[in-house]
């Protein structure tokens, strides 16, 4: 399957995205395509549920949608004590989208690649969360919202004051500012890298298992897939909860 031979070639091939363009303006078509398809699936499912939403006995679609919505709503209510039309839908979108991304990981590693190569696509990386661009796109969007709400709730002056005068008072202003900047920047970076790292490592282990002799593979890939199911849900959940926590921190006025 690989143009280069051997195990290294196989791994590199699996971790190389399908891209067009050079340098910064390169686009990872596989990431864009799969995340858009999964996003569309998410939207269609929930739109369908929303259109058929009834106050009577709910159908299967509505039941699933309502379970997810109540789950997210509960998380938001537990953490966030203000009123915001954005945070709960944002949390739902993040949770479902990331969950769908991660779920792509349990599809056998070579299956979609094989289909792709039949269609003439040489490189295909199907899990969007193993692309830093995808995870950073989410976390940077969240970061922008954090900054936006910080300024909106506290005002420019209030936000500046928080950045410079905490935690050590106005006499330690440069040190405070440095600490605060690190603290704020750490939020999107940790969000993105946590998700990326977990899923990248998981995918890598699936690839390594796929290199082993065929009769050992199921013995290893089956338990790992079960374990990975936990990671898939957990990482989606962590991303959502941390987003809610960060945004409620941005809403808190000291």
């Amino acid at each position, binding site marked *: 399957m690989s143009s280069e031979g051997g195990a290294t070639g196989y791994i590199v091939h699996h971790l190389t995205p399908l891209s067009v363009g050079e340098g910064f303006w390169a*686009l990872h078509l596989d*990431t864009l395509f799969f995340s858009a398809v999964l996003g569309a699936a998410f939207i269609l499912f929930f739109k369908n549920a929303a259109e058929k939403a009834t106050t009577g006995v709910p159908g299967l679609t*509505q039941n699933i949608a309502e379970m997810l919505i109540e789950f997210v709503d509960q998380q938001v209510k537990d953490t966030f004590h203000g009123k915001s*039309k954005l945070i709960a839908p944002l949390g739902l979108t993040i949770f479902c989208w990331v969950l769908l991304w991660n779920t792509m990981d349990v599809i056998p590693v070579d299956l979609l690649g094989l289909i792709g190569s039949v269609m003439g696509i040489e490189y295909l990386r199907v899990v969007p969360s193993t692309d830093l661009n995808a995870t950073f*796109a989410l976390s940077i969007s969240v970061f922008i919202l954090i900054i936006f709400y910080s300024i909106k709730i506290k005002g420019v002056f209030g936000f500046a004051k928080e950045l410079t005068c905490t935690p050590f008072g106005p006499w330690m202003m440069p040190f405070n500012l440095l600490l605060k900047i690190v603290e704020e920047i750490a939020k999107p970076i940790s969000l993105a890298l946590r998700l990326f790292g977990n899923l990248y490592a998981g995918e890598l282990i699936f690839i390594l298992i796929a290199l082993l002799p065929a009769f050992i593979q199921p013995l290893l890939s089956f338990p790992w897939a079960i374990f990975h199911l936990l990671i898939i849900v957990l990482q989606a959940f962590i991303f959502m909860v941390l987003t809610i926590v960060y945004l409620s921190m941005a809403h808190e006025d000291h």
Partner: protein
Amino acid sequence: MSINATLIGQMITFTLLVWFTMKYVWPPLIEALEARKQKISEGLIAAEKGQEDVKLAEKRAIKYLKEAKAESANIIALAQKRANDVVAESKQTAKVEGEKLIEAAKAQINQEIQQAKESLRKEVSSLALKAAEQILQEEVDKAKHKELINKVSEQL
């Protein structure tokens, strides 16, 4: 691993997804949930009220039953009293009627006695007259002695 324009594309997709969820997905579903919650709580309240009503109705039924029993007892007592009265009254009436009858019988008996006395008197007077005629053995002028005879018969 490189950060590139994919990031921007992903951010646009993400923004669109969040916007769509916020606008078209979240509100109707959360509204349906709230409405159902409302409906269920209303239903529970209504059920509770219904049970309360049943209890009240039972109480009222028992009360009505008691009242009806008391009233019927009352009516029976009244009827009994009335029957007694009627019996007593008719006894009284019968007594009065009997007395009247006795009275009437007595009156008749008296009358008959009087009549008998009268006829006896007449008979006695005529007998006395005949006896006197015979005793005197002479014809008595009836017209002459009529006054005397009448006097005697009145005295009888």
